[in-house]
């Protein structure tokens, strides 16, 4: 079982491109957005299975985006990504309903496993 549609929200284009490349090879259709606002619009209009969400975005705090997504579209799996990995942040993200947490830098396998698990977990709840 693999996710059909994945959205990557990260202001670092190189991260978005890398995620898109890796997940496309796994058969996912991947879209990317560079700001929180654009990401939220894409989630509202699209039908994504999994969102890869950077916590540090130029316009909106990633944790706020997580709250909105879990409230508005609870069936979407959200994987939080951050370069400033701390226990308190990981715990807060998980409490808010993130399905996983990836500290940057992460490997291809870590990304693929997290996305697959997020899809399985959220598909169970749909």
């Amino acid at each position, binding site marked *: 079982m693999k996710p059909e549609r994945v959205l990557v929200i990260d202001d670092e284009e190189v991260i978005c491109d890398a995620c898109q490349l890796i997940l496309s090879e796994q058969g996912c259709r991947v879209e990317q957005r560079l700001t929180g606002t654009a990401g939220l619009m894409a989630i509202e209009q699209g039908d994504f299975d999994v969102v890869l969400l950077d916590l540090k975005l130029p316009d909106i705090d990633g944790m706020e985006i997580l709250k909105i997504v879990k409230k508005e579209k609870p069936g979407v799996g959200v994987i939080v990504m951050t370069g400033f990995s701390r226990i308190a942040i*990981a715990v807060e993200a998980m409490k808010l309903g993130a399905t996983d*947490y990836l500290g940057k830098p992460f490997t291809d396998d870590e990304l693929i496993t997290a996305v697959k698990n997020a899809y399985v977990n959220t598909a169970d709840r749909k």
Partner: protein
Amino acid sequence: MNTTQDLNVTEQSVPPHVLVMEDDFSVAKGLEMVLTEEGYAVDLADTGELALKAFREKRFDLLVADLRLPDIDGMEIVRQVKENKPETEVIVITGYGTPSLAVDAMKIGVHDFIPKPFTDDQIKTAVGEALKESVQKSTKAVLKKAETEEEKLIQKREVIQALNRTAEDADFWHDLMENGSIALNEYQLSNEAKAAIASGDLKWINENVGELTQKQLMFIYKRLEREAW
């Protein structure tokens, strides 16, 4: 005493029961003192084996779990507790935490993950919040059970109404005999209940509805008679 804790102690007739699994004596005694002052009943276990024994013997609302123990990996104890007693809330306390370990713990259902050293207020808040969630989960479970009981009562009433109608409405009798479950579409019945009535499954009806009157049994007998032919 904070608000969250007030809620727990006043809403429950007995104080919430907390097991502290910690091999560091000073930390364990400190937690016992702080949590007892908050009104909780506190037990201590300084090994994983003793914690499992305590869970076999008593019911706990919350486990405060250190991960590094002299005998068993604390995470393994947490996993067993969440598997066997999923209603028990768990707070992990550890001096060797990483974000990855915290995420793994949260994935198996841990309510909070607190790195050592922590303050009295941190642990009081975490315990209060965990127990508040525990009360909310219990309330939801009770409501869910009530809904199920209500659904059963509604279905029982509908089965009796449908069977009474078979004795009073010849067209309905004929429709049910010829078309089976479809004739019951206007009733709030599960597919299982519809099939039981349409096929004359007396065993199911007796088990789920109870004894029937002669009037209600007429259709069932006729249906079984027809089946025998």
